C-alpha cells in the first residue's frame, strides 16, 4: 500500500452529510410532485449559475476531505511500511507544487523577487541590499526584467486555451447528450442552447463554466512557475492557503448549521405553537444563553477542549487529528450558541401561524400536535430557515475569523480564512502594504457566500408554490395574468391584515 487512509471526525460527518443529500435526492426523484418543485430550481438562470460556482467550491472541499497518510520511502526492517506523520488530502497531492514551493517570506502576486529588501551576499563576497530572487517564482527566467510579462502572458494564454478546449469538449458532450435525450439533431439542440430557449438555462451554466475553465486553465498553467496570489510571511503560497480554507469554511458553515438547526427548529416552533409554560421555559433558556457573551462561552469551551487535548496526547496519532477535533468542537460550540436568533424568529412566526385558520381547521379534525408541526407549520417557515441559514453561513465563516483572532478559533496549524485574515491584518499596517492575502480571502469568501446566497434565493423562490406559478403562468398562460394579479393583490391584503 502506498497510503494509509485516514478518516477524521469532520470527514466522517461530511461523508454522512453527502450520503444524506444523496438519499434526499433519491427520495425527491421518486416523488413526482416534489421533483416538479425542484426542477423549477433548475429553471432559474441565476440559481444554476451560482450552483455551478458552488459545485466548484464543493468539489475542492470534497477533494480536500479525502485524507490519507502517504507511505514513506524507507521501510522497517521487518517489512512494515512506515507512513508519514503528515496527513495529506487529494487536493494536496493535486496541487503539490503549491504546497511545496515555499519562499522565504512575502512576495507579491506573480512576482519574481521578494517583497522586501534584504542583505545578499554576492558571489564575489561583497554584500548588497536588494530584492532577492525567489526560489521558485519565476526561477526559470534568465532575465526577469525583460521576459517577465511576456512569459506570464504566454503561459496564461496557453493555459486558457487548454481550459477553452476542455470547455468545448464539455459543450459537445452536453449537446450530444441533450439531443440524444430530446430526439433532436445536434444542430437544433445547439441553436436552442444559444437562443436560450432550453428549459434548463444551459446558456447561463455554460457561460459560468467558460469563465471558470478559463480562470482555472490559466492559473494552473502558472502555478508551477509563479505564485499567482503571492506568498505570505513564511513564504507559503496564498493560493494554496485559499484553496485549503474552502473546506474549513464549508465545514464550519454546514456542520454548525446542522448542529444548530434541530435546536432552533424544534424549540422555536414548540415555543410558538404550544405557548404556556413550554414557551416560558424555552424563552428563558434562549434569553439566558443570549445574554452570556458568546465569545466568552466559546473561549471557555475551546480552552477546556485544548487542555483535554494536551493532557491526552496519546489519543491523537497525528497533528491533523488534533486540529480536526478542535474544529469539530468549535462547530459544536458555535452551533450551541448560535441557534437563539433563528429560534426567536421561528417562535414569532409559529405564534402567527398557530392562529391561522388552517391550523384551527386541523385542530378541529383532531390532527396530532406533531403532525400539525411537521405538516402545517414547518413547511410554512422553511423559507425563513433557508434564508437565515444562508445568512448565518457567511457570519459563521466570519465568526471563525474573529475567534481565531482571540486565539480560540481553529488550531493554528489549520489554514482557514480566519487565520488568513488574522495574519493579513498585521500586514495591512506595513509600508509598503501587503494586500494580497486579505484580498484573496475576500474574493474567495465573496464568491462562496454570494453563490450560496443566490442559490438559496432560487431554491426558496422555486419551492414557494405562490411565486412559482406566478412566474410559470407569465410564460405559459399570458391571458390569465389579470386574474392572478387580482388574487395576489388580495393575498397581500390578507397577509397584511393577518400580520396585524
Amino acid at each position, binding site marked *: 500500500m502506498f497510503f494509509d487512509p485516514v478518516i477524521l471526525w469532520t470527514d466522517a460527518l461530511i461523508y454522512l452529510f453527502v450520503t444524506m443529500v444523496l438519499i434526499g435526492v433519491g427520495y425527491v426523484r421518486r416523488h413526482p410532485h416534489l421533483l416538479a418543485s425542484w426542477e423549477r430550481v433548475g429553471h432559474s438562470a441565476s440559481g444554476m449559475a451560482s450552483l455551478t460556482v458552488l459545485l466548484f467550491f464543493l468539489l475542492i472541499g470534497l477533494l480536500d476531505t479525502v485524507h490519507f497518510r502517504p507511505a514513506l520511502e524507507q521501510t522497517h526492517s521487518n517489512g512494515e511500511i512506515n507512513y508519514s506523520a503528515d496527513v495529506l488530502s487529494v487536493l494536496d497531492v493535486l496541487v503539490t507544487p503549491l504546497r511545496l514551493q515555499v519562499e522565504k517570506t512575502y512576495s507579491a502576486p506573480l512576482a519574481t523577487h521578494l517583497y522586501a529588501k534584504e542583505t545578499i551576499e554576492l558571489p564575489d563576497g561583497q554584500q548588497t541590499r536588494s530584492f532577492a530572487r525567489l526560489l521558485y517564482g519565476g526561477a526559470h527566467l534568465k532575465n526577469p526584467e525583460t521576459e517577465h510579462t511576456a512569459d506570464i502572458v504566454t503561459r496564461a494564454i496557453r493555459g486558457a486555451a487548454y481550459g477553452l478546449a476542455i470547455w468545448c469538449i464539455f459543450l459537445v458532450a452536453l449537446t450530444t447528450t441533450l439531443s440524444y435525450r430530446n430526439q433532436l439533431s445536434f444542430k437544433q439542440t445547439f441553436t436552442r442552447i444559444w437562443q436560450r430557449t432550453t428549459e434548463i438555462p444551459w446558456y447561463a451554466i455554460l457561460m459560468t463554466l467558460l469563465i471558470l475553465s478559463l480562470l482555472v486553465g490559466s492559473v494552473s498553467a502558472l502555478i508551477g512557475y509563479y505564485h499567482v496570489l503571492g506568498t505570505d510571511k513564511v513564504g507559503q503560497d496564498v493560493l494554496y492557503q485559499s484553496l485549503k480554507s474552502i473546506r474549513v469554511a464549508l465545514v464550519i458553515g454546514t456542520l454548525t448549521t446542522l448542529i444548530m438547526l434541530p435546536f432552533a427548529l424544534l424549540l422555536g416552533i414548540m415555543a410558538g405553537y404550544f405557548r404556556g409554560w413550554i414557551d416560558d421555559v424555552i424563552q428563558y433558556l434562549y434569553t439566558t444563553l443570549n445574554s452570556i457573551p458568546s465569545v466568552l462561552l466559546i473561549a471557555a469551551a475551546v480552552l477546556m477542549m485544548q487542555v483535554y487535548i494536551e493532557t491526552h496526547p496519546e489519543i491523537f496519532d497525528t497533528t491533523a487529528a488534533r486540529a480536526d477535533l478542535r474544529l469539530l468542537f468549535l462547530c459544536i460550540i458555535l452551533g450551541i450558541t448560535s441557534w437563539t436568533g433563528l429560534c426567536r424568529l421561528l417562535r414569532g412566526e409559529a405564534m402567527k401561524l398557530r392562529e*391561522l385558520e388552517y391550523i*384551527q381547521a386541523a385542530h378541529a379534525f383532531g390532527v396530532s400536535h406533531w403532525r400539525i408541526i411537521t405538516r402545517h407549520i414547518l413547511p*410554512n417557515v422553511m423559507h425563513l430557515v433557508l434564508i437565515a441559514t444562508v445568512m448565518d453561513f457567511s457570519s459563521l465563516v466570519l465568526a471563525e475569523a474573529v475567534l481565531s483572532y482571540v486565539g480560540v478559533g481553529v488550531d493554528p496549524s489549520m489554514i482557514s480564512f480566519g487565520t488568513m485574515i488574522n495574519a493579513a491584518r498585521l500586514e495591512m499596517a506595513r509600508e509598503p502594504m501587503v494586500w494580497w492575502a486579505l484580498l484573496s480571502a475576500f474574493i474567495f469568501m465573496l464568491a462562496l457566500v454570494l453563490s450560496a446566497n443566490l442559490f438559496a434565493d432560487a431554491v426558496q423562490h422555486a419551492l414557494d408554490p405562490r411565486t412559482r*406559478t406566478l412566474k410559470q403562468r407569465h410564460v405559459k398562460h399570458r*391571458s390569465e*395574468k389579470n*386574474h392572478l394579479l387580482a388574487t395576489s393583490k388580495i*393575498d397581500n391584503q390578507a397577509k397584511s391584515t*393577518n400580520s396585524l
Partner: protein
Amino acid sequence: MNALVEINQLRTVLHTGAEPIRAVDGLSLKINPGETFALLGESGCGKSMTALSIMRLLPDAGEIVSGHVDINGTDLLRLPELAMRTIRGKRISMIFQEPMLSLNPVMTIAEQIAEVLKQHLQLSDQAIQNRIVELLEQVGIPDAERRMHEYPFQFSGGMKQRAMIAMALAGEPELLIADEPTTALDVTIQAQVLDLLRQLQHRKQMAILLITHDLGVVAEMAQQVGVMYAGEIVESAAREDFFNQPRHPYSQQLFASLPEKNKRNQALAVIHGTVPSLAQTFTGCRFANRCPKVMSLCHQTIPQWHLVKENHQVRCHLYDDSIQRTANAETAIVTHSDNAEKEQKILPNVTDSPLLQVTDLQVHFPIRKGLFKRTVGHVRAVDGVSLQISAGKTLALVGESGCGKTTIGKSILQLIPPTSGGVRFKNQELTKLNRSQLHKIRAQFQIIFQDPYSSLNPRMRIREILQEGMNALRVNDQSDTHLEQETDALLQRVGLPVEVKWRFPHEFSGGQRQRIAIARALAVNPELLVCDEPTSALDVSVQAQILNLLKSLQDHLGIAFLFITHNIAVVEYLADEVAVMYLGRIVERGLVDEIMETPKHPYTQALLSSVPRIKPEREQHIIRLQGDLPSPAAPPSGCHFHPRCPKAMPICRESYPTSNAFSNTHTTHCFLYSQESLS
C-alpha cells in the same frame, strides 16, 4: 349645473407582465358639486385603480395612457408632480377602506392632522390646534380636545375611520374619494359613518366619489350610480332609476344574487364564470360570456352607450333600437339558476333532544400584568350563553364584531376551552371529554372560516388538504383507492372539477377556495357545521354561489348549521332561528320571522334599522346608536346595552334583566318587557 369633476376617456394600464393590463379602459363620468357618485362593482373591476388614477397615486407598474381628469377646469393629468402635491389633500382627499392601516401608529391623531394642515394652509400653531379640535368635533369625536393627543390604538375602529375623515376634510376638499369607507366596519358604526358623510357633504357642498360593492350603501348614499365591469362603466343612472329598474344584465344579475327574505325557498341567481382578463383586447361585450341574455352580436361588436331614459344610459346591445331583438329586454331575468331544482327536502329525523345544546357557556380570557403575570382581570368574551340547534336546522348568531360570536363557535368545537358551562352534543358533554375521547367524535362537528385565504395551507395540495381530516379521524376504511374516490366525490359535491386536487390553493379564487374549505369540512361527514362568516370576504355574486351550496347541502345531507354572521340579509335568507348577541351575551332569540318582523330588544331594533336597505319597504325610523361596543374586559354594570340604549331606564344600570318570553321560541332580556308583564 356645471360639473365639478369630469373624467373623460380615462385609460390606465398596469405593466406587470408581458402584456399590459387595461385596469381602467375608457372611463368617463361627471360629478356635480354636492353630489355623490357611487362606483359599484365586484372586486377586480378597476374601481380602486380609477380612484388612484384620479389622485395620480398609481403603483409603479401603473401608467395613465390617455384621458382627462378635470376638476373645476384644471386637468390633473397635465399638472407636474409638484403641483399635484398641492391638489392632494387640499382639493381632492381620499378615505381608505382599512382605518387600522391608514393611520400611522406612532403619531398622535393631532400630529397626523396637523401634517395635512401645515402642508396646505398657512396657519399659526395655535390656529392649527384650534382647527384640529374643530375638525374632530365636526366628525363627532367626543372630548376632542383631550382625545386628539391620543394614539390610533386608543381609538376604536369607528373612531379611527372618523379620524381618517377628519384628516381628509382638513384641507376642505372639493372632492372626497371614499374607497369602500365602511366595508371594514359594523352595521351600526357603518350607519354612523354614512350619516356623518351625508351631513358633511350637505354642509360643505362637497362632491363624493363613493367606491363600494354594497348595493345597500349605494342606495343610502348616492345620487348617481355607475356600474363598473371589467374596467369600464356599463351602466350609469340616477339612483331612483337604477334601483327601480336596472337595465344592464350585469346590474340585474347583481340584484338577483342578493340574498333576501322572499327568496328563501329558492336558490339565488348566480353569475357564472369570473371577470375576464383585462390583458386581452375585447372584440365584443365584456360581459358576453357570463350574460344570460347573450346574443351572437354581443361577441362580435363592442356595445355603445344607449340612452334608455334621460340620465340613464347602458352599454348593452339589448337597448340598441336599430337591432332586431328576439328577446324582450324588459322581462325579468331568470331568477333560478341551474342548481335551483326544486327537490323534496329530506326531512332530518327529528328527535326530541336537540343536536347541540349549549348551556350557560362562559369563555373568559385572563388579562395578565406585571413581572409575575398576575391575573388582574378577565375579558369576558362569552359570558353565559345558552342556545340549542336541532338537526338539519340553521341557527344564525348575529352581532357586531367583538361581541364574542367567533369565540362561541370555536369553544363549541373545543378549539378554545370554555371557562365554564356545558356544551352537549348528542347527549355527550364535550367539555368533560379528554383529548382522545373528543377525537372520536370530532368528525361530527366541523367549522368553516371567514377568510378563504388563510384557511387553506398554501403549501399543501388540495388532495392533501381534503384527505387530512379523513386520515386524522379515520372516518373511512383506509384503502388508498377509496380515499381517492372519496376526494373526487367531495370535489364534485361542491361543484369543482376533479382535476383540481393536484393543485395548490393559491391558484383558486376566493369563492373556489371557500368551496374547498367546505369540502374539507364535509370530508368527515359532520352533522353540525359552524360557519364563521363564510361569505363576508366574498363578492355578492360569489356569495350567492356559496349560499346556494350551503343550502343544498343542508337539504341533501341534513346538516345543521350554526351560522355566525353580521350580514342581516344572509340571515333572512338562510336561517331558521336567530340569536342576537351583544357583548358576550345573547339579548334576543327567536324564529327568523319573529326577530325580523317584531324585534323586541332595543339593540336588535337598532341593528336591523341600521342595515342599509335597497328598497325602503317600511318607512321606519332609523335608530342611530351612539358610541361603540364597550370593552368586554369591563362591561357596563347592569344591562350591558344601557350606555347606548335609547330607551334606557334607571333600573337598567343596576342589574341584568332576566329573560322574557313572547312565545315558545321568542325570548329577550330587557326590562322594557318585564315591566309590562308586571303591570
